[in-house]
């Protein structure tokens, strides 16, 4: 919408155009900061739970936001942006695992809790690390982020119909691990 267009419109028309049609303007620094403050913590937690390494999570978080900014995000629906950034992070995490596999290192890397000290936090990290990366992503996105099957499907690159089955298997697997470790009532 041009400046001339705004001047010629009545205040009501301007308000309607601004808030109902959600114009697609490029994100400025202030908007990015607000979005970052709202998303970064949750995204870091997700990446950290996926990789099990704080330094890797820091690195991938930065890469995710760089990629996000490179795509010239527009000020649209916040939810849409949030799903987009989680999808980007998921792709980067999967790429990271592929890279590790190529270098023949053990995945997941340096999961906290490899020390003998038995601690709830470390126990939970170890349990989660037993799952496959895709299962971790599925469970986190479904149970923590509350994403729909369609959104999860987009994030991990599978059809929404398959998400239901994959999610069922992931839940079953996690429940099995919890039972095996005697952690069913945490």
């Amino acid at each position: 919408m041009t400046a001339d267009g705004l001047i010629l419109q009545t205040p009501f028309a301007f308000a309607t155009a601004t808030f109902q049609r959600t114009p697609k303007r490029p994100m400025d620094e202030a908007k990015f900061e607000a979005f970052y403050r709202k998303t970064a913590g949750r995204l870091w937690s997700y990446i950290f739970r996926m990789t099990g390494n704080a330094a890797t999570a820091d690195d991938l978080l930065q890469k995710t936001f760089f990629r996000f900014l490179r795509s010239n995000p527009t000020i649209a629906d916040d939810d849409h942006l949030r799903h987009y950034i989680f999808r980007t992070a998921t792709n980067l995490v999967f790429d990271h695992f592929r890279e590790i596999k190529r270098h023949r290192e053990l995945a997941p890397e340096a999961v906290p809790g490899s020390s003998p000290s038995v601690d709830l936090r470390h126990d939970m990290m170890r349990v989660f690390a037993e799952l496959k990366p895709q299962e971790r992503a599925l469970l986190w996105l479904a149970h923590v982020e509350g994403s729909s099957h369609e959104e999860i499907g987009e994030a991990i690159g599978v059809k929404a119909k398959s998400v239901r089955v994959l999610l069922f298997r992931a839940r079953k697997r996690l429940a099995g691990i919890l039972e095996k470790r005697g952690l069913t009532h945490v």
Partner: protein
Amino acid sequence: MSDFEPEVDAWMKQFARLDERRGPLPDANTLWVKAKLMQSTIAMERASQPITRVQIAAYLLVAGSWAALVTWKWNALSAWFNSFKPAHIILGAAGASAANSLSLTFFMMLIALASVTVMLAFHTILAEE
């Protein structure tokens, strides 16, 4: 809903509540500036790609021209170089016969090609700076 879904859900919620982060998150402004710098670097690289391609093509052309020129007049050139040997000079035949076979056109081409080579080298140095 499967039997284990509530259990898994409760476990995941508790797992998500664990705060693992020790230090602060990277600063948003720093990320913004870095991303913008990266974007401009990428844009610059993209903009200079055609120039780089033309430069490579020019280098290949110049190298090819030098090779063609030397091949074309190889016999005359080697005879000319041999004429500078002390034995030749003593006999008093320094370059006389060889110079005859190297035409003015050849020398003009030699000068033109040398100029193009120097210009190309200067262009590369200045472009990098």
